[in-house]
Every structure is written in C-alpha cells, then in structure tokens.
C-alpha cells in the first residue's frame, strides 16, 4: 500500500520542480491559528500550533492516534467548552474576529462552524427530524421538506432512505448513520465544516461518495477533515497539517507535503515507514 503511494506520489523530477516554485501560503484564510496551546487539566495536548485554514479549500489534519487531532478540531468551533478540564491559550481568528473573545457567543460560532463527529451520533428521532431540527431552531424560513431532501442527496443517502424518512434514525446502519450526520451538518449550511474521520465507518463506495461530495462542497464551504487514511488526505485535500504528540510538525500544500516533505518525520509518516 505505502509502496504504491510512494511510486504514485514521487515521480522523479517532481521533487525538484516543487522545490523551485515553492508556493507560499497565498490563499485567503478564513480561520487562523496562532500559537495555540490546549491543555487537559494543565497537561498540554496541543503545543504552540500555528497554521491558517484557507477559505473554500479542504485542509486535512493527519497524525498518529492520540496526537491531538480531535482536540484541535473541537477547539475550532468551541466544542471544547463542554469538557471542563480543557483550558486554551493562543489566538483563533475567524474572519478577523477572535473566536474566544468574551463577547463572542459560542452558540453563534457553532451555527457557522458545523461538525461531524468521529462516531455517528444521530438523535434518537426520525430521519427527517434529525435533519430538520437544526435549521428549525435557527429560524429556517424556506421549505424544510426540500431542505431535508437536498441535504440527504448531498450526503448520498437519499435513495436509501427516501421511503422511510419518518422511521427512527437508529434503524440505519452505522455507515448510513454517519452519512445522516453529514447531511444534518450540511442542512445548517455552515461556513466551515469540521469532520472528524467521517469515513472511518464507511465502505469504499460510500467513502467515494463522500469524497465526491467534499469536492463539490468545496466550491461553497471550507472543510477541515481529520483522517487516518493517507491516500484520502492526498486525494481530497488542498492543504495538510501533520501533527505528532501535540506539535505541528509540518503544514503545507498537500501535494508538496506528500511528495517532498521538509521534515524527516513527515516523510516517514506519509510513506508508512513510521516509528
């Protein structure tokens, strides 16, 4: 597997080419992390991490299990507020605004920055209500029926559930539940969509659907995705951040990070020669 990746990504000559026109980060960033530290009960899980998140691009977070990917992702929409042990410092700037400023309402933040969790967590309600509830409480004015259909189609789930919209979401398979959670997040039409290993419970076909979906969404949304799948990160993302034990080892354009990483550790990790 990793050998394949090697061959595919390290075409001779490409290294030099990439090194010559080394692109700086030239995008408009929607979210910016500056010297971010995140602690659990005083113990640092994220250390001095700084990188930008480009608008309407896909940024992937990769790194070994326990390196702090989920922790970092949760800090981007104030979901860490619900873990009492967590403290943070550093600056998160969202559209020029300090995300953690006292004047910022975390509820408002989450309306704009949606999230799909590592484990599927549908509400124990009908499929329809799972999707309609979020827009409903946030004062959605147009037809909920259409929104539900549109969101389910986007998440490649519509055909499987269109005849059972009013059955319990818990009757769906794990992979279907995860796609429902994606549809639920999309129904809110967030600016940024945070996804924590959204495909870890999916079969290759659904995964391909989701990846297609991400490509399509990128024209309107900014996506930050955590993944353990190197091929996936290489395929879909524009930028990649590689974390290890809470530190940002390397951040850059995905192609460059995979083909000619600056750091030894990154190379070892992305090629599978790890540890």
């Amino acid at each position, binding site marked *: 597997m990793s050998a394949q990746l090697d061959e595919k990504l390290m075409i001779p000559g490409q290294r030099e080419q990439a090194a010559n026109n080394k692109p700086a980060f030239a995008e408009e960033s929607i979210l910016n992390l500056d010297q971010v530290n995140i602690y659990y009960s005083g113990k640092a899980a994220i250390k001095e991490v700084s990188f930008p998140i480009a608008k309407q691009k896909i940024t992937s977070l990769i790194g070994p299990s326990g390196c702090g990917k989920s922790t970092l992702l949760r800090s981007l*929409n104030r*979901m860490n507020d*619900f873990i*009492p042990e967590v403290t943070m410092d550093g600056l998160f700037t969202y559209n020029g605004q300090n995300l953690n400023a006292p004047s910022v309402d975390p*509820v*408002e933040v*989450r*309306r*704009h920055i*949606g*999230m799909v*969790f590592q*484990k599927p*967590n*549908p*509400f*124990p309600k009908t499929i329809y209500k799972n999707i309609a*509830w*979020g827009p409903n*409480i*946030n004062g959605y004015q147009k037809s909920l029926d259409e929104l539900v259909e549109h969101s389910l189609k986007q998440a490649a789930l519509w055909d499987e559930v269109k005849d059972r919209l009013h059955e319990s979401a818990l009757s769906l398979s794990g992979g279907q539940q995860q796609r429902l*959670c994606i549809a*639920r*997040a999309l129904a*809110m039409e967030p600016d940024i969509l945070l996804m924590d290993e959204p495909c870890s419970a999916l079969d290759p076909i659904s995964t391909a659907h989701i990846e297609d979906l991400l490509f399509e969404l990128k024209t309107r949304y900014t996506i930050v995705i955590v993944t353990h799948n190197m091929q996936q990160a290489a395929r879909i993302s524009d930028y990649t951040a590689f974390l290890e034990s809470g530190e940002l080892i390397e951040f850059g354009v995905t192609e460059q990070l995979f083909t000619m990483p600056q750091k030894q550790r990154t190379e070892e990790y992305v090629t599978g020669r790890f540890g």
Partner: protein
Amino acid sequence: MNQSSDNALNTSDRHLQRRHRKASLFSSFCALITFMGVALLALLLYQVCVDGIKWLDIQFLTSFPSRFPARAGILSALVGTLWLISLIALIAIPIGVATALYLEEFSKKNRLNRLIELNISNLAGVPSIVYGIIGLALFVRGLNLERSLISGALTMSLLILPVIIIASREAIKTVPMSIRHAAFALGATRWQTAWAHVLPASFPGILTGVILALSRAIGETAPLIMIGGLTYVAFLPDGPMDSFTAMPIQIYNWVARPQHEFHQLAASAIIVLLAVLLIMNAAAIVIRHKTER
C-alpha cells in the same frame, strides 16, 4: 485431525462442566429468592382479599363513612385521595423534574451545588412524620392554609420531591453525552438541547420515578394525620382549600376500632387503594409505550 477438533468442542472438559454447574446453581438460588418474595406478597394479598371482599361493592364505593359497618363507605376518602394525588402531581412533578434538569444540565459543578445535591439525597431519608411537622408549621400555620387539601398536597410534595429529583437525575444521566454534543454542534443552546433531546430521551426513566414517588405519597398516613386530615368527613371537597380525608387515614381509623367489621372494612379499603395504585401504574405503562414509538 478431524477427531481432535471434534473433541475440542465437546463439553467433556471437566473445568467447563464445573462452571456450568455453578452457573445453574446460582440461577436456581436467585429464582428461589424471587419466588419467596412474590409468595409472601401473594399471601398478604390473599389475607386482605379474604377479609375485605365481604364489604366490597358499589355501595362501599359510593357511601360516606358511618358508625354502622353495613352503611359505611369510602367515597370521601377516595375522592380526597384523588384530589391529593392530582395536586401533588401538579406541584411535585414540574418542580422535581426542573430541579433535576438544572442540576444535571445547567449548574456549574461548584461547592454550593454539591452541597445542594448532598442535601437532596439526605432529605430522601428523612422520616415522613418530620415532613408532617414541617407542613403543620409552614403551610397550615405559617401560610394560613388551614387543614386543607392544599396543605396536605404541599406537605406530600415536599416528601416526594427528593425521590423525583434523584430518579430524574439518574434518568437524565443515562442520556449519552454524544447526543448533547450533536445538538450543540448545530448551534443549539443548552435549553434547546435539554428540551428537545435530553428530556424526551430520559422521559421513560423520569416517568418510572414519578410513579414510584406518587405511589409512596398515596400510601403515606403520618404526615396527613400530623397536618390534620380529618377522620370523619361526610362531604366531598369542592376545591383545594377544603378540608379533607384520605384513604390511608380512613384505613388507619377503621383498623383502630375494636369491632371486627371495621377491620374488614379496612381490608376493603386497602383493596381499593391497591386498585388505584394499579391503575396509576398501568397508565404509566401505556404513556411510556405511546411515547417510545
């Protein structure tokens, strides 16, 4: 090859056989204990039925108490109990569930709240007569509510509030954190999350706790006697400010009399009380079934 793999799945393993024997011994033991409990209850019920069946008829249900056993009935006590239970439910359920919700979903885990939690657990263990004394001082005298239904209902509500709060909190705790997080990630406030997801998901558990608490209230005598539920009432209450009697008081009163007929009347009243309890439980089961679907 084939034979050896056959052998591996046989139950000839002596160690395994011993474990199976142990398991069946233990489950027989548990069944025996369960049977003993149920048998004791059945015996009690049988005794009550034998004593009480004689006077149990429509006339018994529709008459006021009387000096003559043949004319005595349970009407005022039955209506009093139904009044009490309705008032208690109206007072104790909203306050109890709201308190549980506050403690689980909204309160910060600070010193003050831990103290409150500890106190609620302690209150559940306070003898009911003490609540009677509080009710007498606070509602009957302090608030000048007299010896009325509302005084009784308020006192009983105090008595069962800890039970409702503790049961509701346990039910709320069983709702997975991931559901709350899903709601928060959609830009829901704590209140929206609690109302739309936590409360419905914990509803069956809360209902069980509420029914248990109300069942306790229905059978309590001491606090009602303390705050002065009457023992002889030949009228029906018109509203919460009227004086009243209740079934446990009537039963207590009949049992205390020397004549055997009144003891039988008490048994009849116990049957009616049990019937009311059963109906309440059945209603709860029906409601739970309806809402789970």
